[in-house]
């Protein structure tokens, strides 16, 4: 059997032999280097791309079920046809839905009703568009937000329909460039509210200034009011005038967030909520989002993405492997004499196989190591130049490296066998 020492000196010999033709070995390794590098880099980019989406979904809460009011499409079309007449539609979730969900669906921890209204907020001469969210005191328990200053809405605010509000920090910064927002009074739709707290929504990428300018109004310009206050001050009917049309929409609640006690309840609760709502709503004027399902979908998409990217990269690894095999075959021909001599001096077939296999593996593993280094550097460069999120996972490194090793073995076997099966006499005679 091949002893450890013998194996080590075979490895040494392999390295020595490869160093004899540095350029050739280097070029051969390049194939593997690029292959390993692209496996790691592609998976890192794929991972990074899906990470953000997943984080957003996670911020919705994986224990939650989100039910939103949706304007029924039929109604909307009818409304357009009706021309200049004023028309009111009534749709969406109701307070009764909240109560029904809470009392009938098993595993419900909390049900959070929300009203969402687009308005303009004013503090002296500064007026900004904002999103009014009428909600209850336990909103922070369901939606991930950070309390920055002051307090959130309390139960007493709700009971006494207090004119208090909580602002998101980004809105407050623009509304109060020179004041401490706390205890200031702001005006929304003619009514004054006292600012009692500042919060930051966690799923809001605050570090990106560009989103604050254009599309930030939906996410960051939130004004939280007690639900009862919201109902009392704004009413349930919203009237919109566009040209000669006057449209009114009557919506009790825009969104209901159902928090389940546990992950395990989420999937059973989803169809139950669906069935329950369909009993009481003639039209499907609501939509149900299950973040857990979205998360699973995102994960499935990610997996698919990884497979696609991974196989593209794997193909380049295989091409690299074929390159190695090619060179090794040329090597065998070139070194036929040496093989003959080794056989004459007592080398067995398997010694020759080991020798050539070791050389191939040294090539591919060497290429693999360099590839890992380059592959780890590439995503970092990509991130620093394009700002794209990349995540290098340990398993992609392990995968790429072990594939490179395996390629050395797989693509080394044929040349090694070719070398070993040479007839020693012929090999010795070879010029």
């Amino acid at each position, binding site marked *: 059997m091949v002893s450890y020492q013998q194996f080590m000196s075979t490895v040494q010999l392999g390295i020595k032999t490869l160093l*004899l033709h540095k350029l050739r070995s280097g070029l051969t390794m390049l194939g593997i280097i690029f292959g390993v590098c692209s496996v790691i880099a592609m998976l890192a980019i794929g991972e990074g791309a899906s990470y953000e989406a997943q984080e957003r979904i996670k911020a919705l809460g994986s224990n939650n079920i989100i039910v939103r009011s949706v304007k029924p499409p039929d109604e909307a079309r009818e409304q357009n046809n009706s021309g200049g007449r004023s028309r009111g539609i009534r749709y969406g979730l109701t307070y009764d839905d909240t109560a029904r969900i809470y009392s009938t669906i098993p595993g419900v921890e909390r049900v959070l009703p929300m009203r969402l209204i687009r308005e303009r907020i004013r503090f002296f001469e500064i007026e900004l568009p904002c999103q009014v969210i009428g909600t209850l005191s336990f909103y922070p328990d369901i939606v991930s937000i950070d309390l920055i200053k002051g307090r959130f809405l309390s139960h007493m605010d709700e009971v006494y329909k207090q004119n208090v509000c909580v602002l998101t920090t980004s809105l407050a910064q623009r509304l109060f460039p020179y004041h401490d927002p706390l205890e200031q009074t702001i005006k929304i739709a003619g009514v004054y509210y006292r600012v009692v707290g500042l919060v930051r929504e966690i799923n809001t990428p605050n570090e990106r200034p560009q989103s604050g300018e254009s599309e930030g109004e939906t996410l960051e310009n939130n004004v939280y009011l007690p639900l009862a206050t919201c109902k009392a001050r704004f009413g349930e009917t919203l009237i919109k005038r566009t040209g000669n049309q006057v449209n009114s929409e009557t919506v009790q609640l825009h969104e209901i967030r159902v928090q389940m006690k546990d992950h395990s309840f989420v999937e059973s609760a989803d169809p139950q909520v669906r069935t329950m709502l369909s009993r009481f709503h003639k039209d499907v004027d609501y939509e149900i989002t299950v973040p857990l399902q979205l998360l699973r979908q995102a994960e499935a998409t990610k997996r698919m993405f990884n497979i696609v990217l991974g196989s593209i990269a794997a193909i380049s690894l295989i091409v690299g492997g074929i390159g190695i095999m090619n060179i090794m075959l040329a090597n065998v021909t070139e070194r036929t004499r040496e093989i003959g001599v*080794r056989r004459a001096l007592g080398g067995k077939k398997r010694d020759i196989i080991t020798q050539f296999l070791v050389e191939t593996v040294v090539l591919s593993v060497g290429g693999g190591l360099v590839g890992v280094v380059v592959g780890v550097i590439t995503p970092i460069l990509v991130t620093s130049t394009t700002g794209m999120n990349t995540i290098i996972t340990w398993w992609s490194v392990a995968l790429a490296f072990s594939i490179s090793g395996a390629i050395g073995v797989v693509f080394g076997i044929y040349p090694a066998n070719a070398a070993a099966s040479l007839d020693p006499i012929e090999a010795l005679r070879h010029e």
Partner: protein
Amino acid sequence: MGDDIEVMALDGVDIDIHQGEYVAIMGPSGSGKSTMLNLLGCLDRPTAGSYWLGGEDVAQMEDDSLSDVRGRRIGFIFQSYNLIAQLTVLENIQVPLFYQGKSMAESYDRCVELAQLVGLGERLTHRPNQLSGGQQQRVAIARSLVNDPLMILADEPTGNLDSKTGLEVLDLIDELNDDGKTIVLVTHDNYVAERAHRVIHMKDGHVDREEIKRRTGEERQKVYKRR
């Protein structure tokens, strides 16, 4: 497959080579001397017949066992030296021991000793391409000795050398024989064969004739003693 015409390279050859003998095999090309050499060197197996080497019939051995026999019992000296280019002098000498599973550390002393014996004690770390033909052949001789073989097979050992270095190499081989090594030398050069105790002339796959050479004491004196 059926088209292959069976050629008898050797037919009815019966020779004995005794320990300590110096035998030269001569013959024109096509006489079967290469086949003879391959058989003696355990590189090839006879289709029929037997070959006893050191008390073992190696004629029908498996490939691996043959490799083993070659590695342990035979020392090869080739016309074109056949050193391994990427190895140093010392490593080249060690190759047969390597295939017997011995590490460089174990065989270092022996390899150095042999390198000194062939006069290359100063060039242990040189590579073959840094040596002259004569020096390379001496490395090959040292290599053929490293496994303490039963028989040293030399295939035209001076064929690639100029006459002066050729002489030196032949002297070295003589010296080995004087130390009790069995030498079988294949050559077509009469002058080279002169040095052997016995010359086997091959012709058309047969042993044509054998001649016994006797060296006079005078001739023995000519052998340059290196040590």
